[in-house]
């Protein structure tokens, strides 16, 4: 077993375990911290797939900025243990059934995709995720979407200011 395979399985186990811990944590802040561990594991996978830039972006944007937003949402919601309404048993049962159905559908879809069996990801190959190739594509081929994305940012900013300043 090569070191890449060992790393792949280690990161996979880490991602799955932390994802389960996100759901099992009683404290929502702990859930957010476990979610950061999930993002770190997925960034490790990106590095194994030779997409270093994507890995760093994943860390900076998701583990850094978006998790801060998650924390603020949790703080804004004022989750006290006393004031938190208890979900009744029927609601929990309904959630378990619907989640289980979704899992069943996903498993059956993956099992029916026969051309995917026996294949593994090409680890450490390909250069599509390297920053120079990405930059070349972004600034020559995809200039218009790039400029439109700035308009998207502008609208997000204006929306945030309009909603946030109302109080």
């Amino acid at each position: 077993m090569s070191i890449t395979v060992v790393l792949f399985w280690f990161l996979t186990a880490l991602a799955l375990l932390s994802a389960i811990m996100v759901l099992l944590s009683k404290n929502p802040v702990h859930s957010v911290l476990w979610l950061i561990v999930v993002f770190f594991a997925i960034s490790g996978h990106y590095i194994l797939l030779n997409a270093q830039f994507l890995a760093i972006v994943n860390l900076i944007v998701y583990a850094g900025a978006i998790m801060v937003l998650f924390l603020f949402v949790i703080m804004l919601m004022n989750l006290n243990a006393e004031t938190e309404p208890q979900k009744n048993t029927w609601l929990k049962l309904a959630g378990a059934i619907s989640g289980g159905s979704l899992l069943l559908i996903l498993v059956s879809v993956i099992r029916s995709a026969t051309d995917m069996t026996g294949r593994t990801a090409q680890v450490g190959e390909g250069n599509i995720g390297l920053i120079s190739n990405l930059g070349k594509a972004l600034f020559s081929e995809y200039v218009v979407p790039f400029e439109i994305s700035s308009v998207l940012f502008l609208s997000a900013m204006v929306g945030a200011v309009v909603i946030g300043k109302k109080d």
Partner: protein
Amino acid sequence: MGSVSLIILTIAAIVFSAGGILVSKIFVKGSKNPRKGQPYECGIPTETSPWKQFHVGYYLFALLFLIFDVEIIFLYPWAVVVKKVGMMALVEISIFLFILFMGFLYAHKEGALKWM
């Protein structure tokens, strides 16, 4: 092999930092007295739960930070290829930054960056 050594370094860093915490957990004689968590000699005792509702202003700041964070992400590939693409890249990034700067001016004019 470069990425593999990077991941090994990451794991070694995690083990190194977590190891110190674990070793101190094992060997240090801790006290479970609830008085240990109280402010000592100075400061007033806390009264209610620290879980208070936060002001929405924090969220606004975090959202603005996120937008500029993503903007900086776009500058990394630009900085790598700017020499190859040439003058065109400079024009493209200028338009991009100009549009975002308009948003910054709007937020500034609305007083969104003033605290409370």
